[in-house]
């Protein structure tokens, strides 16, 4: 190992540590829960195989099924993030997750934002992305595939927030005037300190890197 390469490696390690702690902001984690319907709805979203993503607004996929389909509701504040990525585990493939703008009371077409298009591809967590307004409530609906089919089925809902579509959360809020006093998550002081350390290290590297020869 040369004298030049060592600081680079050290910088890489430091950045890796930072990335581990700050590459995404988890704004909601349900933990593993057993499905327990809080209410019922008529029909549910059709799983049409199309996953919502940040570049493409997904059209409402239509409904299937009859009455009495149970759902469980989680409302999450988007905080300072406009780009949300939702992961959903449902190992029994009896449930389905979708997102709605604001409140949700049962009509599946009202306020629809997106869904993963399928349940549990290849046993992995299903996931999808939506773009929302900052500091607004987003309703996540967990519904059973068929009436009574999901009772007790374990699931976990996981929501991450990002500043942009490149998964960055190590920058400042793009629009400082846009708020920040809401209930959403903001970087904790520890995270900010790490960010600062990383930026200093990065700046140091950049200067060194442009002057010194590569090993």
């Amino acid at each position, binding site marked *: 190992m*040369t004298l030049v*390469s060592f600081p*680079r*490696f050290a910088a*890489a*390690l430091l*950045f*890796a540590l930072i*990335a*581990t702690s700050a*590459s*995404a902001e988890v704004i909601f984690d349900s933990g593993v829960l057993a499905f327990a319907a809080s209410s019922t709805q008529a029909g549910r979203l*059709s*799983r*049409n*195989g*199309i*996953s919502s*993503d*940040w*570049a*493409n*607004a997904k*059209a409402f*996929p*239509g409904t*299937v099924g009859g009455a009495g389909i149970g759902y469980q509701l989680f409302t999450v504040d988007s905080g300072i993030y*406009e780009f949300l*990525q939702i*992961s959903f*585990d449902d190992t029994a493939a009896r449930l389905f997750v979708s997102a709605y703008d604001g409140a949700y009371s049962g009509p599946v077409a009202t306020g629809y934002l997106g869904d993963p*298009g*399928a*349940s549990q*591809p*290849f*046993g*992995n*967590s299903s*996931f999808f*992305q939506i*773009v929302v307004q900052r500091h607004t409530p987003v309703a996540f609906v967990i519904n059973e595939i068929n009436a009574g089919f999901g009772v007790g089925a374990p699931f*976990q809902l*996981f929501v*991450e927030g990002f*500043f942009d*579509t*490149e*998964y*960055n959360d190590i*920058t*400042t809020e*793009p*629009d400082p005037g846009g708020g920040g006093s809401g209930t959403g998550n903001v970087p904790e002081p520890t995270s900010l300190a790490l960010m600062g350390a990383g930026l200093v290290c*990065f700046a140091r*590297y*950049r200067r060194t*890197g*442009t002057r010194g020869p590569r*090993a």
Partner: protein
Amino acid sequence: MRPRPVLCAATGGVCLLLLIAIGADISSRRHLDDPIAPSAFAQMRAILAAKHARAVAGLPEEARPIARVNRPASSNHPHSAVIGSLLAALATLNPERALMAAGALTSQGDISHSTNIARSTYGVDGTGVRVGVLSDSVESLASLLASGDLPADTTIVEDIIDGPGSSEGTAMMEIIHDLAPGTQLFFASSVNSPESFAANIRTLRNVYHCDVIVDGTSWSTESPFSYGVIAQAVDAVVADGAVYVSAAGNSGSLTRNNASTWQGDFAAAGTDPLLPGYTLHSFGGQSFNRLLVSTAAIELFWSDPPEASTNDYDLFVLNSAGTSVVSASTNIQNGTQRPFEEVFRASGFPVNSRVVIAATAGAAPRALALQAFFGEALQLKTAGRIGGHAGIPAAVTVAPVFWNSARKGTKPFVGGAFNPTEVFSSDGPRRLFYAPDGSPLTPGNLLFATNGGQVVQKPDFAAADGITARTTGYSPYYGANAGAAHIAGIAALMKAAKPSLTPAEIRAAMASAALDIMAPGNDRDGGIGIVMAPAAIAKALQ
């Protein structure tokens, strides 16, 4: 029968429709409600009628079973203005914008492999590096150029001739552009013919001077035991200095009990009145294997010299009771033919069909490789599904790992039990009996039992799949091709950091920077492990 290309990755579009059309059991793969759009079926059937060989040409070894349904154009996205203004704001705030990932959508693999960190830490984005991509087609190219998900200087060397394809080429290029946005990208189709595939590999290197080449296609005629034209081309461009990355495939593994291959030495099991004149092969206790899942094509290879087989084996599919022949491949091998037989039925052979390997009189025992297209297809199975050009030492062969397999969200991979390979990933190792020029590696010793040939540890590495791409039908993008594209992107960053790196040095640096997964050490499912970009570049710079 014409050989057929197999898009290794889980693909959408036409490839998927073909899979559905032949009756493959996809219900266990992904839970959907909507039927396939009639128009899409009509398109698929037209393709089937026009080119029956290509009916399976697009067959993915593992497909993400969704229909190809057009979505609104990105320009109609209600938030496109918001995204644009946000990115513009970020560009103002961050003068290092050029080192950030590009495009309106970024692969989660950029975080999983810490290539975002690598770009910042080492000040590299792939500038000066040329990457060639071989896949089926690039139908989504125009929209991706417009959205910035692909660079304006992307060069199409040769597109699919008898399209349409699934545009997986653009999906693979998206990943590379996300990880190494400074690279210049070149595309050539790999599904026009094996000879065209091989020629395009050489063209990408010799004419377009690609430093890194990646593909996601295998052809049904590619032997697991010897070099064909594609493998020879891969070997040649690597010898010339290019890094060649190939997908391991999505045909299952012994570890997951869904392997679609059986490999071993011929052993006589007696005769069958239904097949007079033949000596049946014993799979160990029975003279047949069984299909556990309906499959369209079954291939048999044996360890005779390429294009010079003198031992005549044949392949039969019988009904479940073994009382009638459903299909047979009985080409004569008498000295100038390839050691290969294949049966094919577009609608798929029924579940529980018997698969029989039979030797004609005088055929000497050889190592055998029986393989079907899809995982979980065979009752009796072994490891070693990775073959063809992906199985040669020169190729960097990649298995897929779901980006969120640790269930921690968008975080760097950590390895170990948190990041296993996908359940559908193909396994190694590979045993080669012949050198690239066709000469035997162990003359006179052509059997597994006597340790003939050379064992090649495959796959080499593992990388992210299940990521979000903007190419229509590839969100999410599952399969080994997605993993291969991530490794190609990392290789491009390494090459940019130190242009003098040889393919061997890049492979060694990747190995030193890999997170061990699956079985401890270099194993048949995940290879050496998941490559992490910062450590790989650090090692390369030492």
